[in-house]
Structure formats: structure tokens, C-alpha cells
């Protein structure tokens, strides 16, 4: 088979059918308050890319402080200087705000919405052959609930005065986050932060019910469960995780809000779920309560551990799709891939305690959580090996999509393996809350998920806009990001081993950490390189929307249903109602060879006679 360069493909229908869905719609209902899942998906995508910039800028400020403590920040410093009397200098409470908001933005406004919101929305109906989501209006609301959330997070920056943004970490442990006198950022800022969190939760909630309903009930004829692309499986499992885990966080969030009621309203009424009585915080009157702070940690991690898989599984699914396509080979072990995702989700509900190994948790619980955490590496291992098996002896297309996916696998291994150290309780006793943890989760979140997202953006870009992104620019972006990412985060493992605690505004205050300053400076420089590289992505993305090379329906010669729709698909998606005849990964199959190509669309009917059995199967 010839190497495929993404270009105008000649195999499928022409591009003329595009216009069929054009009803006269106003600009507002078409592009702003649209109920079309594709528009909503793209809205989510663009919003999250912009939020990535915000979160990244905050990260760079964090890095600045760690490399050049208490020195005036160059450009960003002046930006933040607007809010702040110290000029460009970061004060310690400002530092706590920086990493809190960095993590909140990255997790709640970038990773979760880009995976479920952007790709989930865009891909689910297209890949299962539906004309839209089951509940389009709900879908639109799920996007428009993001903005109040962004607004609340935005207000929280300034609500507490110049330097008092929410500063309790994204984990927001009480009692620190519960009592206004505990920290400058625990007042109004924390309240707004909690509102933001709740709104993000509502948005995800609406999305997840919608995704589950759509996937269960709106598949095209012939699209049996085990003919669904792994992307769909991953979205489905992610939606289940969200549906069952998120309400618990929402409930806990309400409890925290009610604990803080007297800081919110002029009343002395407030609950005490997380406040033990008799604490004297910052010389204020002793607390009235009767609750327990560990309750929050349990409820929070009951959500937030499944959430880290919410932040990974969709990327895993998408990468499986892309690796298979770019290797022109079926996914190795499709069913094990599905089962292992399900196992990750199932086990993901019973490992949350591994974030609390040093918290004074009951040791019996500690042992249970350790064992289950170790076990969760098993399905991950299966997936890693199957990805390698998928590439093995494939006809690999070395484009940026593939490279990003390969980086996903490579970096996920690193992040996952560092998880093993932390899963072992005695070792975690040393590593907990050191930079080893920071290294771990940046490898899985940035190294794995974001690289998967970079690949996904380029892969499905043609379907979104009918044009291709420049592969060359994406390759440069890939190299710079990959090097910058490893330069920034790999040394963090060593910092962690050296015992450098996280969330420290100035670690060098402690003698045994002083000599780590040069290494931190190196990491900051790498981070800046990586940050600058993101402008390539940004530029390429927006340039290609208008100027990219035009392409047909199936530029990658892939198999999924989405590739049989026009690029971009009109309202209602498919010009020919799709019927699915086979699994999504029949690359290089004999059937395809018979047609003289190395792919065969899920919709392309088998030779007459076979049709009946294939469809009647259900």
C-alpha cells in the first residue's frame, strides 16, 4: 500500500452534499447558542485552548518564583502587577493562589472540558452515526454553564482583595479552606472558587447524562457495542465515572459552602461538617463544629481520583483510534482494551485513599487502598502493551498525529510507573507532597493526556473545519513541547527524591534544598520553551481554520463513521444515513485489500449476500 499523505482523497463521495442541512439560522442560534453538537464541541475546544493559555501563564509564574524567588517577574509580573502593590514580586499568599488557580484552571477548565466537552461532543454522535445528541438543549446548557464557572473562578482572583485569591490548593482541604481567618484567600475568594467548582460540576453532569443516553440509545443500525470505536467506549466509561463520582463532590462542595455560611452572609448560622470544635485559628474565637476534616478528604478524593481517570480515559480511547489508523493496523486486542478501561473505571472507585496515606487514615484502610491501587496498574499495563502491539509491524505514518500518540504512550508509562512508588504506602510516606507527586501527575496529565489532545486536535481538525492543519508546524510543536516537557518535569522526580516539598513559595529557605536552585532554573527555562511552543499550536490552529489546505471527507483514510460524513458535516451530520457493517479498525484486512486499499469504512457494505447476516445480527 502506498504511504498516505493526508490530502484530497479520491475514494469517497465528493464534497457537494455539504449544504443539505442549511436551514436559515441566525448567527446567534447557529454559532453562539447552538444546539448542534459539532458547534458546541468546537466552542468547548476553543474555550479550553484559551484556558490552556491562562493556566499555562499561571504555571509560568509559579516556575518563575521557583527559579528566581522574590525577584520581579519580567512580563507577567507587570501584568499581575496591576493587582498588586509589590510591583512584579510574588508574595507568598500570591504564590498559593498561583498554583491553586493553575491547577483549577488546568483541571476544571482545560482537561476535563476538552476531553468530554470538546471531543466527546464532537465525536460521539459522529462516530456512532447519530444526527445529534439525545438532548441537544441540555448539551448547549452544559457549554453555557462553563461561562458562569469561568466567571466565578475569575471573580475569585480578585474577590478577596489584591493578593488574596483562593490559596488552598485545588484539593482545598478544610480547615484551611473552611475558616476565613485561616488564610488571606479563605474568605470571599474561596467561596467564589467553590461556586465555580459547583458550576463546572453541573456542566459535566449534564454532559455525562447526555453522553450515556446518546451512546446507549442512538447508535446507527449495525453499530453494536463491540463495533464501537474505543473513543466511544472511553467516553461512555468516562461519563459513567462522572455520573457516579461527581455528585459526591457536589454534595461535599455544598457542605463546605454551608460550613462557610457565616462568612458569606451576615448570620452566625453555619454547619460544621468539616470543623472540629475548639480550634483556635489565627487567634479567632474557638470554632464551633463537631465535624471532621478527614471527611472532606474522603469525599473529595472519592470524586477526584475517578476524576484523574476522567482526565485520562478519553485520551486513551482517542489515542487507540489514532494509533490504529496511523499504523494502518487493527487495534491489538480490542476487547481487552475495552475490558481494561472498564476495569480502570471500576477499580478507580476504590483507590481514592491513596491520596491520604499520610493523613492519619486508619492503617487497615491504608492497606486496602494500597492493594487496590497496585491492581489498577494492571489494566493500565494491558493497555500499554496493546498499544505497542498495535504499532508493531504496522505501516507507520510518521506524521505529527502519530508522534504525539507515541509520546502519549511513552510518557504515560513514565507517569504510571512513578505512581507505583506512591502506591506503596511506606515509600509514599516519604514522597507524599513532594515534587515526586508533581512529576507524576504532570507526566500523566500533560505527558499523556495533553499529548493525546494535541494529536486529537490535528486528527479531527479536518472533520471540524474541512481543512488540514500544517503537519510540519505540528512536528516542530511536538519536538519543542516534548523536549520542554521532559526538561521541566523529569527533574521533578529528582527534586522529590531530594525531599523538596510541593506548594513551597521558597524551598531554598531550607538548607538541604539550597543546592537545587540551578536545577529549578533549568526547569523554568524548559517550561518557557514549552510555553512558547504552544503559540505554534495556537497559530497553526487559527491559521488553518481559514487558510489550511482543503480536504475531503476522509483525509486520513480512516474507518470510522465520522469519515463517511462530509467535512465539515452539515446540520444533522450524515447525508446518507449510516449503517455499520463492521468494527472500526479493519485496516489492511483482506476485505479491504480486495478493494485495493488498506482501509474499509464501517459503512461500506460487504459484497452482496453478506449484508443480511451482518445487519440482522442484532
Amino acid at each position, binding site marked *: 500500500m502506498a504511504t498516505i499523505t493526508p490530502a484530497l482523497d479520491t475514494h469517497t463521495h465528493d464534497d457537494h452534499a455539504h449544504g443539505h442541512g442549511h436551514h436559515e439560522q441566525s448567527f446567534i442560534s447557529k454559532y453562539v447558542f447552538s444546539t448542534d453538537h459539532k458547534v458546541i464541541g468546537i466552542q468547548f475546544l476553543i474555550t479550553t485552548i484559551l484556558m490552556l493559555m491562562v493556566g499555562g501563564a499561571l504555571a509560568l509564574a509559579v516556575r518563575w518564583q521557583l527559579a528566581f524567588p522574590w525577584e520581579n517577574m519580567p512580563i507577567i509580573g507587570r501584568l499581575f502587577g496591576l493587582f498588586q502593590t509589590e510591583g512584579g514580586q510574588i*508574595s507568598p499568599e500570591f504564590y498559593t493562589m498561583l498554583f491553586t488557580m493553575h491547577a483549577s484552571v488546568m483541571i476544571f477548565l482545560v482537561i476535563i472540558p476538552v476531553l468530554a466537552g470538546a471531543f466527546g461532543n464532537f465525536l460521539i454522535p459522529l462516530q456512532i452515526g447519530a444526527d445529534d445528541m439525545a438532548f441537544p438543549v441540555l448539551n448547549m446548557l452544559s457549554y453555557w454553564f462553563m461561562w458562569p464557572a469561568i466567571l466565578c473562578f475569575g471573580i475569585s482572583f480578585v474577590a478577596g482583595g489584591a493578593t488574596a485569591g483562593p490559596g488552598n490548593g485545588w484539593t482545598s482541604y478544610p480547615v484551611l479552606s473552611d475558616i476565613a481567618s485561616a488564610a488571606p484567600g479563605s474568605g470571599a475568594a474561596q467561596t467564589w472558587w467553590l461556586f465555580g467548582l459547583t458550576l463546572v460540576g453541573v456542566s459535566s453532569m449534564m454532559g455525562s447524562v447526555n453522553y450515556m443516553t446518546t451512546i446507549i440509545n442512538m447508535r446507527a443500525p449495525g453499530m453494536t457495542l463491540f463495533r464501537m470505536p474505543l473513543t466511544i467506549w472511553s467516553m461512555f466509561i468516562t461519563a459513567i465515572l462522572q455520573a457516579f463520582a461527581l455528585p459526591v463532590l457536589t454534595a461535599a462542595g455544598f457542605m463546605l459552602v454551608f460550613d462557610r455560611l457565616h462568612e458569606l452572609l451576615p448570620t452566625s448560622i453555619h454547619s460544621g461538617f468539616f470543623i472540629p470544635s475548639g480550634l483556635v485559628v489565627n487567634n479567632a474565637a474557638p470554632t464551633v463544629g463537631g465535624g471532621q476534616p478527614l471527611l472532606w478528604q474522603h469525599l473529595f478524593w472519592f470524586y477526584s481520583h475517578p476524576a484523574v481517570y476522567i482526565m485520562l480515559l478519553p485520551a486513551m480511547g482517542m489515542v487507540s483510534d489514532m494509533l490504529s489508523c496511523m499504523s494502518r493496523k487493527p487495534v491489538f486486542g480490542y476487547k481487552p482494551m475495552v475490558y481494561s478501561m472498564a476495569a480502570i473505571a471500576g477499580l478507580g472507585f476504590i483507590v481514592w485513599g491513596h491520596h491520604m496515606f*499520610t493523613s492519619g487514615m486508619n492503617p487497615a484502610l491504608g492497606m486496602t487502598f494500597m492493594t487496590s491501587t497496585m491492581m489498577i496498574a494492571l489494566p493500565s499495563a494491558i493497555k500499554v502493551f496493546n498499544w505497542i502491539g498495535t504499532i508493531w509491524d504496522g505501516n507507520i505514518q510518521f506524521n505529527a498525529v502519530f508522534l504525539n500518540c507515541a509520546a502519549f504512550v511513552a510518557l504515560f508509562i513514565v507517569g504510571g510507573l512513578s505512581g507505583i512508588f506512591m502506591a506503596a504506602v511506606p515509600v509514599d510516606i516519604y514522597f507524599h507532597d513532594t515534587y515526586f507527586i508533581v512529576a507524576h501527575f504532570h507526566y500523566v496529565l500533560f505527558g499523556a493526556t495533553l499529548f493525546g489532545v494535541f494529536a486529537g486536535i490535528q486528527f479531527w481538525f479536518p472533520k471540524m473545519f474541512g481543512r488540514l492543519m500544517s503537519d510540519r508546524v505540528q512536528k516542530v510543536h511536538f519536538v519543542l513541547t516534548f523536549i520542554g516537557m521532559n526538561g521541566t518535569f523529569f527533574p521533578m522526580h529528582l527534586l522529590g527524591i531530594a525531599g523538596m516539598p510541593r506548594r513551597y513559595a*521558597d524551598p531554598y529557605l531550607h538548607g538541604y534544598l539550597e543546592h537545587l536552585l540551578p536545577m529549578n532554573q533549568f526547569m523554568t527555562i524548559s517550561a518557557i520553551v514549552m510555553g512558547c511552543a504552544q503559540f505554534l499550536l495556537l497559530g497553526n490552529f487559527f491559521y488553518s481554520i481559514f487558510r489550511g489546505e482543503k480536504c475531503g471527507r476522509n483525509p486520513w483514510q480512516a474507518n470510522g463513521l465520522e469519515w463517511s460524513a462530509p467535512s465539515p458535516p452539515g446540520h444533522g451530520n450524515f447525508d446518507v444515513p449510516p449503517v455499520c457493517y463492521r468494527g472500526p479498525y479493519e485496516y489492511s484486512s483482506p476485505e479491504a485489500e480486495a478493494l485495493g486499499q488498506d482501509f474499509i469504512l464501517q459503512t461500506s457494505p460487504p459484497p452482496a449476500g453478506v449484508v443480511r447476516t451482518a445487519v440482522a445480527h442484532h
Partner: protein
Amino acid sequence: MKKFWALFFWFWPLVALWLCAVAPANNWWFPSPPLSTLGHQIDGLFYLILIIVTVTFVGTQFALGYALWKGAVKEPSGKAWFSHGSHKLEIIWTIVPAFILVFISLTQLDVLAEIRVLSNFPKEARNAPVAEVMARQFEWRIRYPKPGTQLMTEPRPGDLYYVNEVHVPATQPTMINLRTQDVQHAFFVPRLRVKQDAVPGLIIPVWFEIEKAGEYELLCAELCGWGHYKMKARIIAETPEQVQAYLARLEQEQNDDGVADEQSSQ
């Protein structure tokens, strides 16, 4: 160019390995060898996992790079291997890691029980906590029992107080009671590999046996507000006699600037 990419994916794990290999020599490793009995066990487990993980890392990254290499050297018209997977392989790569992981878990249990299960604490330490360490924004307040008495959960007259410096005996199991007056903190002594959160509303016993007299830095490892980074304190391990002497000195000092009649009662 294709080969370049394959080499790229082979090359960076080598850099990573090299960095780890030179790290200890450059002081980018543990701040010091473990100086407590539990620390030795923890480090032992760390190195055990490190070996397993390094082997896995090298194996998987090599395999990934090799898969790329195979793809890179394939002639452009080459045909991909049409395969939906292999049952046998799936079973192998489920069972082998499963064994390894179960093995890792099992090796942890004893040490965990030793560190955290109160009934496993050395008796002499459990029966006589040397001090109460009370974390507070942003300092550590130490309370020793009045020499010759037991430490009580509630302060007693005659108890001795100090800030940011804990004197404990070396070379014998020692237990402190950890608590916090306000928000959550964590008691972290890197060289001893000790870490325990101080949770509001709980008194948590922590034990360790320091092997060598000396000074150990004590930090806070749980975000507790803007001054989290500066909860700097010291643990001073010395002979029991020296600790006694220290406490006597402390008692002296405390009574000197105390109220006169208290002094006369001594």
C-alpha cells in the same frame, strides 16, 4: 526522517536513565542516607521498586522504539501485519505484571504495619511519648512533660514549652504526639523519612528511632496557608542524658521568668 523519529524515541529514555545515574553523584538524590530504622526499610522498598520500575521502563520504551524502528525501515509499499491481537500474549502480559504488583504490595505490608499500627509500636516508645508537637500557623510548639512525669493530653502545670526545636534521644525508639491547633499541617523530617499529617481534632502518635545524634530539619508538608514554606524547625537527637540536661535547662529558664511563687515551689 522516519528513522530519526524512531531514534528519538529511543534516545530520550537513555537521557533520562543517564540523568538518574548521575543524580546521586550530583547531590540530586536523597538528602542523606536514611538515619532512622524505619528509614532503612523505606529506602529498601524504594530501591526494590526502583529496580522493578527501571526494568519495566527500559523494556517498554525499548519495545516502543523498536516498533517505531520496524515501521521506519519498512519499505514504503510494505503491508501492515493484519492482526486483531493474541490471546496468549494478553494472558501473559496480564499475569506477569499481576504477580509483580502483588509481590510489591506484599513487601510493603510489614513495614506499613510497623510504621502505622499503634499496637506494633515498640513498647517503650508507646508507653512514654517524649513530647507533644503542636503545629500552628506557622511554627511548631513543643511541650515536654514536667521532668519525671508522663506526658498528658492536656497541658499540666510544670510542663515545658519550646518553639521550633525538638530534643529527642537518639538510638532508641521515640514517640511524639502530633497535633495541630488550627489547620492541617504535616510533620516531615526528610532525613528520617518520617511524615505524618497533623489533623485538626486528632492526636496522632508518631514513632521513629534515630540512629545517629545530630540535627535534622523538620518541615511542614501539608499546605497550611501563606507561610507553609517557612515552618522551619529542627529535631535535635542526642544522648538521653543530654536530653535530660536540656530539659533541666529549659525548666530553669522557664521558671526564671515565671511568677515568683511558682519558683519557690520547686
